[in-house]
């Protein structure tokens, strides 16, 4: 079920936040943080890093809040910024990671969830996908964005999003042993 269906009025909350409404700010953080955190966690698999990213994300939302136009969909705007935060962090830490021994981080890694009947360690399998495919799949399946919204958030065409999602599904299908 798309996330927007469960949280009506996030656009209205954002518009109120632009007008300095503290209740709207609180509601936005409460309602949107879990899915943004999930978006980061699924890509970093490191809780501390995902929380850092979440904090940075809200800082950017605060700085960029004037660029949201009431009446426009909020999710593409939000995820375009969320993506940017992750790209920036990746670039900054890339150099450091290349020279680090990462064993220290291992205990912090989120424990994979127990597989369910229709969910055979999907979260682990996502890690094997190329970054762009994983990102598209996360936006579609975790955050519940539509293909059009993912296209807007990632700045590519709808066709490109469909292609990435298709390739991701194919790759996961093969791993699940359901290859054609």
């Amino acid at each position, binding site marked *: 079920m798309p996330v927007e269906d469960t949280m009506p009025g996030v656009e209205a909350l954002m518009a109120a936040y*632009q*007008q*300095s409404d*503290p209740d709207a*700010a*609180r509601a*936005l*953080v*409460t309602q949107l*943080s*879990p899915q943004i*955190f*999930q978006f980061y*966690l699924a890509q970093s698999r490191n*809780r501390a890093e*995902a929380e850092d990213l*979440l*904090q940075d994300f*809200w*800082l*950017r939302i*605060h*700085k*960029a*809040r*004037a*660029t*949201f*136009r*009431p009446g426009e*969909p909020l*999710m*593409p*705007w939000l*995820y*375009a*910024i969320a*993506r*940017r935060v992750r790209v920036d962090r990746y670039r900054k830490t890339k150099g450091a990671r290349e020279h680090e021994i990462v064993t220290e981080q291992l205990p912090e890694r*989120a424990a994979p*969830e127990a597989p*369910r009947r*229709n*969910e055979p360690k*999907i979260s682990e399998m996502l890690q094997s996908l190329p970054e762009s495919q994983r990102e598209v*799949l996360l936006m579609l*399946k975790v955050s519940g964005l539509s293909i059009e*919204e993912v*296209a*807007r*958030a990632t*700045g590519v065409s709808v066709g490109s999003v*469909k292609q990435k*999602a*298709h390739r991701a*599904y*194919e790759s*996961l299908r093969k791993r*699940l042993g*359901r290859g054609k």
Partner: protein
Amino acid sequence: MNDDLNISLSPGEPPDAELLKRITVQMESAPAVRPLPSNAILLTISLSLFAIISFALAAVVKFKAFAALSAGEMELYYGAIGLFALLFGRAVVERMIPGEKRQIRSFVPWIAAPAGLGLVMGTLFSDHSTVGFVSSGIPCLTTGVISALVSGVFGWRLLRCGYLVNPRETILLYGFFAGLVGIAVLALHCPIRNSLHFLVWHLGAMILAGIAGLLVGNYIENAD
């Protein structure tokens, strides 16, 4: 797209409650802001700035091109510049807003503008002589680059009203857009009807501005 995998991820662990509280405290104190106007208004402002800066700078170096061009030539020449200004303006404006639907791919304006303008000028001016090529070209290149720089500085404030999710791509386009101001100023000023002169010295100003945009964009991309 074959999505028959029934993929779904459970909500997972929520973020730390203390962290959310800290974020909320920071967000609650945000002063009110006025949302950016529509793309149509931003585009109108961009094109108005483009026209005002072009005419103001051309007035400084004198409008000498009017005497050298026929009405038809002016229509084609200035019409092409206006068309590409519209293309660059639209491309830059839609990159100022995160998650905005992109109707113009980033490479289209900076490939189409030099190619289109080169074609128009090659068609309009049949003179290809190279007499005084460098001596007449350097002042044009200098004027074009300075004009691009001035417009780049003036337009920067407008660009920074937005939030650039891809500074490298956006500022590259912005650099070319500023370079187009250089071409517009030269189109109003330079009376030389020589296609080679245009291709090297006028278009050269735009290419240099585009390269400057790429360098600034790269710098900002890495500094952010």
